């Protein structure tokens, strides 16, 4: 390991490089449609396994910690970004598209793995992990092509449905394996209990927090938005300790506080001030997500084995299969809809996998269910889908890039 005597300098430089790449990656994405996560993962791969600046074993020692933190932040942010009203109102079309695309993609990836001789657990996990499109990637890919709100909304809702769904299903599989009791009744009871505890406690804490948060926002208490985040950590811990699912509780907490105004209005609760999450809070959570995901993608890249050519090849194959599956499933889900043929093609090219797939792929490793090589397949699947998506969308450039504000 180089720079051993100046460890602090080394880590500071590393951190600044990560943040800079996170920023530059987003800037480059505006023109190239290749999202920041691709650059961050490649940077991580070069920084750690290729040049060995940090031993991979030290990354592995903190994998449980990193996966817990990232999944918590990710799920909380996913909840914050769900507009419950829009989701319910447009649920019919977006749900059909989201669920059909997710199921078809998951089944296709499952069969690729299963037919190549991998076991049921590995094939199922792969299918579910790569089943959803990436909510953090799609905006960068579409901004040069999809300027029609209808298409954007559909994709936002699709990723809002399918990404948490993918994480929830992976958590179900992991819980099933950890419970190690395959009696259907026992399994069902345990899982329902785990998820119910998370849903109820997440919602109860959020209901209690919304008026307090609104008060702090109204009277402009400094850094009050940080309190919401601290509360998520507390809820996560309490829910996990009581036998519930921490990530689901974080999702629920985010979802309820983001929709507080609508929920309280629905309950006829008369309040003179808004229960909406302020712009500062939203920016703060976006910033935290930016920090966390930037570090996480470098971390993820650092866990890759560069010589695992077979894993990479498998990732490319799965990426290609996912594209074919998406083309078929999108046309199926949007059959006889108001979307034109061109719209349908464009939507079907939005195959990029992103944060959700990467975050959730680390979970089975952290629980010791799968080995590290599994990440090579997911890594290459994410890269392949991003590259294919960018190339296909490049031909659809129908409006000039958005000028930097």
């Amino acid at each position, binding site marked *: 390991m180089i720079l051993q005597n100046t460890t602090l300098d080394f880590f500071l430089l590393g951190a600044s490089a990560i943040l800079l790449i996170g920023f530059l990656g987003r800037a480059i994405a505006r023109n190239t449609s290749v999202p920041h996560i691709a650059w961050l993962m490649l940077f991580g791969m070069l920084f750690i396994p290729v040049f060995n600046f940090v031993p991979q074993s030290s990354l592995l020692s903190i994998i449980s910690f990193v996966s817990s933190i990232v999944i918590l932040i990710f799920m909380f942010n996913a909840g914050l970004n769900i507009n419950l009203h829009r989701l319910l109102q447009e649920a019919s079309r977006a749900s059909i598209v989201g669920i059909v695309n997710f199921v078809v993609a998951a089944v296709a990836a499952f069969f690729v793995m299963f037919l190549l001789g991998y076991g049921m657990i590995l094939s199922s996990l792969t299918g579910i992990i790569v089943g959803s499109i990436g909510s953090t990637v799609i905006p960068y890919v579409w901004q040069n092509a999809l300027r029609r709100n209808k298409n954007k909304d559909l994709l936002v809702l699709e990723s809002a449905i399918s990404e948490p769904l993918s994480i929830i299903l992976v958590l179900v599989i992991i819980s099933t394996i950890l419970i190690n009791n395959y009696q259907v009744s026992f399994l069902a009871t345990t899982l329902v*209990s785990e998820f119910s505890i998370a849903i109820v406690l997440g919602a109860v804490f959020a209901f209690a927090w919304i008026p307090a948060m609104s008060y702090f926002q109204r009277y402009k208490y400094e850094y009050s938005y940080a309190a919401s985040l601290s509360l998520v950590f507390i809820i996560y811990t309490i829910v996990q300790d*009581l036998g519930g699912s921490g990530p689901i509780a974080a999702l629920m907490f985010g979802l309820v506080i983001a929709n507080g105004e*609508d929920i309280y209005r*629905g309950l*006829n609760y008369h309040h003179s001030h808004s229960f909406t999450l302020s712009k500062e809070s939203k920016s703060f959570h976006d910033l935290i997500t930016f920090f966390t995901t930037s570090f996480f993608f470098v971390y993820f890249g650092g866990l890759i084995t560069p010589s695992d050519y077979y894993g990479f090849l498998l990732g490319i194959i799965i990426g290609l299969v996912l594209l074919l599956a998406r083309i078929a499933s999108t046309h199926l889900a949007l059959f006889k809809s108001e979307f034109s043929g061109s719209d349908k093609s464009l939507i079907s090219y939005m195959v990029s996998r992103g944060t959700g797939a990467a975050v959730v792929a680390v979970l089975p490793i952290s629980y010791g269910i799968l080995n590290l090589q599994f990440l090579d397949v997911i890594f290459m699947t994410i890269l392949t889908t991003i590259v294919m998506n960018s190339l296909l969308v490049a031909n659809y450039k129908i409006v000039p890039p958005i000028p930097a504000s």
Partner: protein
Amino acid sequence: MQDPIFAFSIAAVIIFIAFIADQFFKKSGIPSFILLIFAGIVLGPITNLISRNVLLPLLGTVAELTLMMVLFYGGMDINLHKLLANSGRVFIQVVLYVIPSTMLIAAFANYVLGWGWPQALIFGSIVGGETTAAVMVPLSRGLKFKEATRVFLVLESAMNSVFSVILFLTFIGFYQTGTASSYTAISSIVSNFSIGIVIGLTLSLIWVSVLAYVKQYKYTYVLTLGFLLATYVIADVFGGSALLSVLVFGVLLANHKFVETFLRRKLHIDTLKRRLFEFQGELSFLLEAFIFVFLGLIVSISLNNIFFGLLIGGMITLILLIVRGLAVSVSTFKSTISKDKKTLMLLCAQGLTPATLAVLAIGYGIPLANTFIGLVTYVIIFTNTITAVGSFFAAKHLSAA
């Protein structure tokens, strides 16, 4: 009891008594259930017209069905906003009433009666802190309390039996294995509540959406009852509080406008909901009448130990009243319902949960379980009498106001 004509005659008498008792309650403020329980005592222990042993195997099913229907009906009369606004206070009330009263009664049984701690704790959990929905739901409606007070009583009666049952099972575990985990008890309570709420919420949302499409069909009410039974069973199978799921089902059905706000579309089920509410009212009335008579029928009062029963039952009731008074003072502190706190303290009627748990204790082979049944009977009679007195004064007070 074997003769159907005899059974029909008894049923007819019960329905007549229930109707008269209800009218009497409206005039005098004396709750109808007192007359019904008394009718049960006359038909059973006094005249022996109906054998207690014939009814005991039926008690569990009839009691569960009654509680289900009563809570569903109670839920259909609750404003969701009021429910959420008061649920925190109700939770405090349940925790402050059930746990301290269980512990104090256990301490009383240990130090005064000389019972071992395991038996004392099991007994404490049987009689500690329940208020029965079978009494509270109709009573709170009949007394015309303001909505927040009604919600408080209904929700408390739905929640406290869950605490009692879990504490009972924890102490049974303590008796059988010699170890008890407070963590397991808390986790079980949270899990039980959560599953009940989530299943009730999910299935009622589905059903409200379905009702919008099937509202014009005949027998929609029966179909709704079928779905309610399914909700109860599903919640129970998954280890949740089935009664809570039924309550949530009723609340969401009544507050379907909340769903409409989110969907931004009208479901047009108001007429259907009104019809459901009327039908459910009739059915609940019928089942309540039978269950109170059942309660009167199964009480076991032996002349041999009547003084022991009266004394100990009275002391336990006193402990319950003191703890309830303190719990109500804390949980209603600075709230809109604090004016009703004296009445809330007196409305402490116990019923089905202590009776069922006492019977279960026999099944678990707990020493002194037969003594439990005798004492539970006295506690049920005392708490119901106090509730009758409390509701009588509340009725006078409310009509004067």
